[in-house]
């Protein structure tokens, strides 16, 4: 980062700090009732208190756990199913249109069905998160398989590679940018659905924590939870970008 960019960064942080100061001012002057809007000082104090007593750690861990299990399950299943569909012309003509039809379905609408089948349980949350997160990954895999350079398939045919070998040696590596982009999209979906499931099923996590805080009008705790959810969203998406960068380094070098 050169000096000018660094200066802009500092200025940008200063502006953000200015907004926080403004928030503090509004809260101090009680322009908005403190029942709804705690000052940043109170939200911060609540964060510190929550972390030092270990309460927030366990809630954060709960949310991350739901998110991670659901997302991993969706990734594995999504890539596997996507590979099966994408690598076969027959499957593509018969199955892919149905998937396209289901894609715009608001996935949260599956929650009541999942509750009816599995009750208000962890299994329900896991199913819903995985179901919601699978779509971007699966469709990206199908799309990535379809966009593989046709000559690579010709090479595979002349080498008489088996279908599995074609998938692992040719299709998956060349579809990996699409797949990783799908996995990144799914990460956001997984976080949102984790929060919704925690709110509905009362599962241990930040979603439940913010809802309880709201019901008890503990606005400082509520804002602390929301801030923590924002940080979770930010950190996971940055981590995913880094992973993408690392995993695709070989492709960047090739071009």
């Amino acid at each position: 980062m050169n000096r000018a960019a660094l200066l802009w960064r500092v200025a940008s942080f200063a502006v953000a700090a200015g907004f926080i100061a403004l928030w503090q001012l509004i809260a101090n002057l009680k322009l908005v009732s403190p029942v709804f809007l705690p000052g940043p000082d109170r939200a911060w104090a609540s964060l510190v208190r929550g972390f030092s007593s270990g309460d927030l750690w366990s809630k954060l861990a709960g949310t991350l756990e739901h998110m991670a299990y659901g997302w991993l399950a969706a990734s594995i299943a999504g890539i596997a199913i996507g590979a099966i569909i994408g690598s076969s012309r027959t499957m593509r003509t018969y199955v892919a249109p149905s998937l396209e039809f289901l894609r715009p379905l608001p996935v949260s609408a599956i929650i009541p069905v999942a509750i009816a089948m599995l009750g208000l349980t962890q299994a329900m949350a896991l199913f819903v998160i995985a179901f919601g997160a699978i779509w971007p990954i699966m469709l990206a895999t199908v799309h990535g398989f379809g966009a593989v350079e046709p000559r690579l398939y010709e090479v595979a045919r002349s080498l008489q590679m088996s279908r599995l070998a074609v998938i692992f040696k040719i299709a998956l590596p060349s579809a990996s940018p699409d797949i990783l982009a799908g996995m990144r999209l799914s990460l956001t979906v997984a976080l949102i659905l984790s929060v919704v499931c925690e709110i509905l099923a009362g599962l241990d996590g930040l979603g439940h924590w913010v809802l309880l805080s709201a019901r008890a009008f503990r606005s400082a705790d509520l804002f602390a939870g929301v801030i923590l959810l924002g940080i979770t969203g930010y950190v996971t998406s940055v981590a995913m970008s880094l992973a993408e960068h690392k995993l695709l380094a070989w492709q960047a070098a090739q071009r």
Partner: protein
Amino acid sequence: MTANSAKALVLPLAVLAAFEVWARATHLQSDSLAPPSEIVMALFGAFADLSILAATRDTLFSTFAGLAIGTIIGLALGIAFGIFDTLNRLMEVTVEAIRPIPSIALLPIALIALGFGYRMEIVIVAFACVWPVLILSRAAVRSIEPRLMEVARALRLPPAQRVWKIIVPAALPRIFVAFRLSAGIALIVAVTVEIAINPLGLGAGIMLAQQALRPDLMLAYLVWIGAIGYALNVLLVVAQNRLFGRAALSGDGA
């Protein structure tokens, strides 16, 4: 083409038929599943007593109100950030700090501040819609042909006219793509808010059907919600192709 679309129908029809036969053969008694014929009957019933239409109206009202507010805010910010690079750089940290907050996390805040009802749902939908529009319209404004801006300068257009006569028309195809993305998000967020907490619209309807142990009605709602999502998507894609043709494709990642 017709052969292909016929093939596309084979799988869903086969699944539905197999399910119908299986449900009839086993005399299915379930709180979570119902044979397709009963789902269709329940859907007709819900149409007949207008309950599903009222719910659809509530959901779509919140969706479009939130979408409109979110798009206007996102567009205003996006165009401002696109024109004034200084402003964009100064606001970067603030925007990146607020953007990753999952929209649904605002639900409890909106709940205590606004209570149940349309307003809290609209606020959350609008929050979710701001970001795609902001990011894409900012990129669209930045990628406007520089010579157009030179023309604006040569004509000494005042700033308001510069935005209205040069920037908006030039960036419109890509702005519409952003609007299309946001519309999909808006419907998803609206239904999610209703399912999670807000006693309104289709989301509340499907939750009520589940709690009333009416799997046929619940699945009818699910089918209907899916149909609305699909119809909205098709409508916007067609509108995009009609209005902008290939111009919009340059900004479309999908």
